[in-house]
């Protein structure tokens, strides 16, 4: 019973709850949303124990939706999507709780959108039908557009429209590519289906079309990741978004790009993805992301912008790990995806807490506040250390596995990426110093209040994950391994066959 309905429940429950949030009085909205998102998390938790690592795709529910067009409602998770689902359900309640003080207008609308957004995100990660996937991809786009555009900062409209058009441009290309793909496979096999399983099983050689189809998927996902040079929407969106928006944007939405590569772009077009020129281009862009993202982050005066550019660097590690296509590198990439959600999510929460106290995101507005707000300073220190990959925090294990796994495939690239650890220290430590250390020389900072119990409740789960994953990631790694193994084998095998038959 649980195994068939759980994913559908995770999809449907937030929408139902969103309707409830709209109906209750304004001042109850956040509490209802919090309860609903906690319930969502509770529904998802048993997945951790009931998931069978070796059993491939599971918790599958497969129903006809629009039979005439070969569209079905198919959902399921494997060792790759499981953690994206759990990351989503884990971050949403924290984001709701973290918005209690930040969101003061139109609360019902905000929390309802947050819940709808949750459904969209879960949908992206569990869809096993390409049409369903596309629908979910758009469903998640619209609430985020409003969250930035309505509750954002001063330039919120510019940022929201930029975010929307950029993502929408990519996703339309992806829709065309999906339609063409279904048509091509349908023409050859006589059966038109959007089913992921059917398409991957009956790909055959797509010929030159594969290159263009991959290109369309690549653009859609590369924008989302974001990879250099498609990244400039991110700093704007992050800076303008309210705290919860930034947390979800960094924590979950960016992962949709890398997840898309893992789930769709690689398995559907293995021969293109592993073409030497494509490999070289993607590895080069990943390295540019790591080094360039870090260096540009280093000179940002705005704390949220700094975190945004650091995301470009972290996601560069993910892309490198995915494309190196070894067991260590892919699992490392998956871990970095999780870790980035936790650490960068926590950083955005902390940036939001600083903003709520001083109404400034500028690093130079602070200084010496460790004296006034020791708890906040301690939390910011731990999270920063995790973000720069200090061993015994989560940040290290992911990046280390990526490097270790990428080295045999791309030795020089791995060495350049390893230099990213220096760059990471160069952008975060000076910022940390300018915020919490140095003389307490600004009058406004002398009476800042330290973390409230609510804020502690938001941060403690994230800090616990930082230490837990850093010290004992084995339970996560074991659950991922078969899925990562399967992915690598099938992509390598398919790439070899398709290249041979072409």
């Amino acid at each position, binding site marked *: 019973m649980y195994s068939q309905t759980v994913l559908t429940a995770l999809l449907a429950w937030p929408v139902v709850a969103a309707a409830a949030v709209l109906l209750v009085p304004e001042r109850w909205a956040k509490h209802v949303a919090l309860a609903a998102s906690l319930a969502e998390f509770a529904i998802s938790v048993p997945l951790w124990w009931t998931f069978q690592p070796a059993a491939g795709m599971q918790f599958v529910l497969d129903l006809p939706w629009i039979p005439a067009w070969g569209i079905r409602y198919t959902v399921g998770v494997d060792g790759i999507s499981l953690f994206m689902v759990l990351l989503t359900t884990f971050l949403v309640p924290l984001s709701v709780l973290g918005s209690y003080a930040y969101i003061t207008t139109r609360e019902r609308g905000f929390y309802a959108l947050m819940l709808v957004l949750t459904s969209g995100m879960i949908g992206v990660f569990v869809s096993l039908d390409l049409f369903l996937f596309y629908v979910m991809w758009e469903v998640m786009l619209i609430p985020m557009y409003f969250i930035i555009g309505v509750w954002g900062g001063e330039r919120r409209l510019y940022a929201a429209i930029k975010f929307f058009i950029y993502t929408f441009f990519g996703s339309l290309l992806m829709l065309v590519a999906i339609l063409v793909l279904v048509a091509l496979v349908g023409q050859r096999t006589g059966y038109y289906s959007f089913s992921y399983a059917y398409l991957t099983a009956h790909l055959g050689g797509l010929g030159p079309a594969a290159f263009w189809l991959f290109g369309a998927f690549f653009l859609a996902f590369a924008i989302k990741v974001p990879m250099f040079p498609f*990244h400039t929407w991110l700093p704007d969106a992050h800076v303008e978004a309210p705290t919860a928006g930034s947390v979800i944007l960094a924590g979950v939405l960016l992962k949709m790009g890398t997840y898309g590569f893992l789930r769709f772009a690689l398995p559907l077009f293995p021969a293109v993805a592993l073409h030497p020129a494509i490999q070289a281009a993607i590895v080069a862009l990943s390295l540019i992301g790591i080094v360039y993202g870090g260096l540009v982050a280093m000179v*940002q005066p705005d704390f949220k912008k700094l975190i945004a550019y650091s995301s470009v660097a972290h996601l560069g590690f993910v892309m490198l790990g995915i494309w190196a296509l070894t067991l260590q590198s892919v699992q490392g990439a998956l871990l970095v995806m999780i870790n980035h959600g936790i650490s960068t999510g926590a950083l955005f929460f902390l940036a939001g807490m600083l903003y709520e106290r001083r109404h400034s995101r500028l690093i130079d507005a602070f200084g010496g506040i460790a004296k006034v707000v020791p708890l906040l300073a301690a939390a910011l220190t731990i999270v920063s250390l995790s973000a720069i990959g200090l061993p015994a925090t989560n940040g290290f294990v992911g990046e280390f596995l990526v490097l270790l796994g990428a080295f045999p495939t791309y030795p020089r690239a791995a060495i350049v990426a390893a230099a990213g650890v220096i760059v990471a220290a160069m952008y975060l430590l000076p910022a940390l110093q300018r915020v919490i250390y140095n003389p307490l020389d600004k009058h406004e900072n002398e009476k800042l209040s330290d973390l409230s119990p609510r804020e502690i409740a938001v941060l403690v789960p994230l800090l616990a994950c930082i230490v837990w994953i850093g010290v004992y990631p084995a339970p996560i790694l074991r659950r991922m391994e078969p899925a990562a193994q399967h992915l690598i084998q099938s992509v390598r095998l398919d790439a070899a066959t398709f290249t041979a038959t072409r």
Partner: protein
Amino acid sequence: MIPLPPLPLALLWVVPALPLAGFVVNGALALAAPRAKRAVSITGVGALVLAFAAAALAVVELAQLHPSAPLVFRYWEWLPVGDLQVALALQLDQLSAVMILVVTGVGALIHVFSVGYMHDDPGYARYFAYLNLFVFFMLTLVLGASFPVMFVGWEGVGLCSYLLIGFWFTEKINADAGKKAFIVNRIGDFGFLVAMLLIFRHTGSLDFGVVFPKASAAFAVGGPVVTAITLFLFLGCTGKSAQIPLYIWLPDAMQGPTPVSALIHAATMVTAGVYLVARCGALFALSPVASATVAGVGALTALFAATIALKQWDIKRVLAYSTVSQLGYMFLGVGTGAYAAGIFHLTTHAFFKALLFLGSGSVIHAMHRAYHATHAHEDAQDMRNMGGLARYMPWTAALMWIATLAIAGIPPLAGFFSKDEILGAAFARGAVRPAWYVFWGMGLAAALLTAFYMTRLMLYTFHGPNRTGDREREQLHEAPPVMTGPLVALGALTVLGGALNIPPLFGGGARLEHWLAPVTDAAFTPAPDASPATEWVLVVSAVLVAAVGMVGAFRLLKPEALAPARLAPPERGLGRLLWKKWYVDELYDAIVVRPVLWLSREVLWKIVDMRLVDGLLVNGTAAASRALGWVGSRLQTGEVGVYVVLFVVGVLAVLGAVVR
């Protein structure tokens, strides 16, 4: 495989766990009840004393077994991914035994000293939390049974160093120094990281127990891979152990509390690189190039840092450059293949340098209180403000003299034996590779300078007239017993420490060398034994050089002619060059720091990101489509005539396309 031994060795994890527990308790106290000083002291010092006891028990047990391979204890799977299987595992062998005794033993003494030194500091609990955390990571570093576990300790001690250098963080200079230490160390850590990538690629493992036995089969002697691995590892060492070119952070690290300088930046953490080379002896033995690099960089650093120490006025800066220089000796030792000598000097240096730093802490403590009492804003660390302190602090003065004689290499103190071992080994190696004669000569020259600058420090601090100030002078007095007690203990170790490894030349049994044999034999590089006559010549010349340095300082320096810092004339010529540390910091700033910042801000961010990518490509595309829309909208004139013309043109175009 050795079967699992009985208790208490299986409880090895207790040794690092105790200071970790101390960190947790003191960390909680620091956030919740920072004024509970008694609880903090009991926790902080107690954790170290117990850890020392546990370490001693473990080492006694190890001595009885005296196994030929390390005893490995696996606790849980850390990174199990396919053929990569890294466990959180600790190992105890003769080398790590020496290290844990030094770390917990000297560490415990410095914790006790800190109770007195930091007594009035509002950050007392935070201080002990960081110090306990440091000891935990240091023990992880020396007990880790694989490269990644060692790396946890390696970066962890760097973190604690960062936190403690910037302990008084409201002064920007302190926070800057901490940040500099972390970032420079990260450059070294990059080397460590790349070395791990290479090791895993070529041996399929990161466990010491697999990599080292496999090394001689996996790598050709002098091959490019093993040379790359060892050179990258050594890059890590130059960061952590402050060698050329990455030594620049250590002098700045003196911004931290003085007991921190004693524990982290003299006795333990900075010796981690020496430990790493000794640990990886099996790899370094396969690469003559890397070994020569280690020895050469060590000898050069020993000499170079000693020249800077000649002209520093800050008492702690003299000791900092002295530490850089002494670490150079240790690298000369391990780079020569004389691992036992390197570790021996590491141990004796931990004793006498901790004593010197704590002694300087005692001096600074007294100076600071004197200036504090009279509300004077003078530099409590500048030797030009001291002088004649032996009258006020006889214990400190006497004990620091013992340490000075030891570091200068005067027999029979600890430093004499260990330094002599290194220089003797380097000279013997010269018979095989003449480059080592040069390294030996540099080491000897550095010994001359060492004797000189240390005597200078003692003369200016403790002798001649006092320059502190007339009112302040009355406030100067000896430190409390909680501070002098650890000094006395370290003094005893400084006197007796040489007994650990008295060479056969003096009728000793070279005990440390034999003790370490199971570890160092794997990396044994045979060097011809010098004849006893040669050895005697070497010993006598080393002692003579030390004596010349000390006597020279007595003859040349005039403490009575010195002016207080405030009135001192500026330095000129070579003196200025040394005082300014050869302008290396300025050089790095000009060729690395500023260009990188400029490139990032002015080029990458403002031009590439804002103008090119976002301006031209992104908003340019938007502007182009707006322009296209404008053109389109201009066509919607509402005049039927225009529409007809356009219609006809369109039809003709389509027809033309189809017909052709």
